[in-house]
């Protein structure tokens, strides 16, 4: 690792810590930012403060879990996006590419249709998690049931096919529920991606898998680099490609499932953050993966903060990330077409 890369990583750590503090300090409830920082400091050091107790409650029980959920989700999605792009050797790959997001949406919508929220706020995320893993499992089994070896192309295509079938089912369940206004509203809210009312329960749901999975994935940067040079090349350099690919896909799916089940579909974080960082620090996954986690976390915390502070209270993080991500995606498409045209 060069000094410049170490500097970039250190900068991203500082950026993440900074935006987490800032996002916790800023909000619509009337807590002055400086006092908010002091409350945070007191919480960390275990001091009692001489300010109204409700201010501390707002920070600790409302803002902090929401900000941390956003950070974990953003980090997990950006990291798995980078991993998927390396596995598929495709710049357009994103975390939901093999049906995780579609399955999560179906699971969440089904749980809401069955009246999950009347029991617990955490039942919809649980349904989403089961849907995400179930869908990925089906895609994986379909892709590997062909002649022995798991082909990346088959995986991609069955991901698209199963994803669209599951999305159709999601729309069907949604249509069934539109007459019940409240349930339909919850579903739409989930499908758009939502950080509203995220509690420490959500943090507890996302944290273990995101932490373990991200560390495991980030430790495989060197293998992913070799995979980028092609399957045969990686094999001949000493990598058991089928086993590596299976393990990477399992862990990437678990992290993605944890992320999307906690907050719903958040588009483009997993696509644009790895690309932006690749422009800055090159394709080496040993440094790109940790950088993607830090950058994705900071990006989503800021996107959520913008939504909370914007006077249009209906702005959603998923909308913000897609409004930034969509044009960037198009830019990538146009640029890759241009370089393609230049080489022909």
């Amino acid at each position: 690792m060069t000094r410049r890369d170490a500097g970039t990583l250190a900068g991203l750590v500082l950026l993440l810590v900074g935006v987490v503090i800032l996002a916790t300090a800023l909000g619509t409830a009337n807590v002055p930012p400086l006092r908010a920082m002091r409350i945070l400091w007191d919480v960390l050091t275990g001091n009692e403060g001489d300010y109204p107790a409700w201010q501390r409650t707002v920070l600790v029980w409302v803002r902090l879990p929401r900000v941390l959920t956003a950070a974990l989700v953003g980090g997990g999605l950006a990291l798995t996006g980078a991993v998927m792009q390396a596995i598929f050797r495709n710049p357009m790959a994103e975390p939901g590419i093999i049906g995780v997001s579609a399955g999560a949406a179906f699971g969440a919508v089904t749980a809401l249709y069955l009246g999950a929220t009347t029991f617990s706020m955490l039942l919809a995320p649980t349904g989403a998690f089961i849907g995400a893993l179930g869908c990925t499992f089906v895609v994986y089994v379909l892709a590997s049931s062909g002649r022995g070896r798991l082909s990346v192309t088959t995986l991609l295509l069955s991901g698209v096919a199963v994803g669209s079938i599951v999305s159709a089912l999601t729309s069907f369940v949604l249509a069934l529920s539109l007459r019940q206004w409240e349930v339909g509203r919850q579903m739409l809210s989930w499908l758009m991606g939502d950080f509203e009312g995220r509690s420490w329960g959500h943090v507890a749901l996302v944290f273990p898998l995101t932490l373990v999975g991200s560390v495991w994935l980030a430790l495989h940067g060197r293998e992913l680099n070799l995979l980028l040079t092609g399957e045969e090349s990686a094999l001949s350099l000493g990598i058991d490609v089928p086993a590596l690919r299976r393990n990477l896909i399992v862990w990437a799916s678990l992290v993605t499932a944890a992320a999307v089940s906690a907050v719903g579909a958040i588009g483009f974080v997993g696509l644009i953050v790895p690309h932006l960082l690749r422009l800055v620090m090159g394709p080496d996954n040993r440094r790109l993966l940790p950088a993607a986690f830090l950058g994705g976390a900071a990006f989503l915390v800021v996107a959520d903060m913008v939504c909370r502070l914007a006077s249009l209270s209906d702005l959603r993080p998923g909308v913000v990330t897609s409004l930034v991500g969509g044009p960037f995606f198009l830019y990538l498409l146009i640029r890759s077409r241009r370089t393609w045209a230049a080489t022909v």
Partner: protein
Amino acid sequence: MAFLELNDVWFEVNGKAIVREVSLSPPPGSFLALIGPNGSGKTTVLRLLAGLLSPTRGTASLEGRDMRQWSRREIARRVAVVPQDTHLDFAFTVRDIVAMGRHAHLGRFQPEGAHDRAVIDQAMAQTDILDLRARLVTELSGGERQRVLIARSLATEAPTILLDEPTASLDVAHALETYELCRRLAREGKTIVMAVHDLNAAARYADRVAVMQGGRCVAQGRPEEVMNERLLAEVFGVQVEMYRSRGGWMSFVFHLGPVATEVAEYPR
């Protein structure tokens, strides 16, 4: 004991034999050229030797043990591969790519040590790419990329290197440099196996040649034993004239039809 050996190997896809009855054992410390027309099975034989394919009949073995009993990591420390397609999409530096050759020697948490760095530097020196080390592989010419991949195979410290038509996209000077390098490596003790289309180069540089035709290995031996006009004419379906060059090595000129001895009269 033979180091790397194919013993009566068949490789079939959907019941069609791509390679049949091939027995081949590259002699250690020498340069073996695999020659044969397109589709004769040269690349498949290389992939069988590298353990990238498993024989459908017969056995491929490494140090006397069946290839399938070795892990990819263990094979990678013994057999290195220089692929035919040198295209690399991702903007790694030359040194990054060469350093990938060390993968099979490093544990998961183990960074490059002094020995690894020395091996990487030596591999770049041997292939004359030390001054390219910080360049991006996406910006290199075909010949430079080829040398980077040969350097990567040297960085593995594997005693055997398999090369699949490494000179296919090189001009004559770069091609000659590649052959010279391979011969030098063989003199230094490496076992080199190269699939190659240039029969003049095979005759001049290789210690041994193996001739493939229709999936079979139809002849093996020293070039002067094997590469005669009759065999080459039959295997490649061309007419062959053979000369001795001033350096003493064999040289061939090929013709599609019968060798013309007189200038044909222009038809009226």
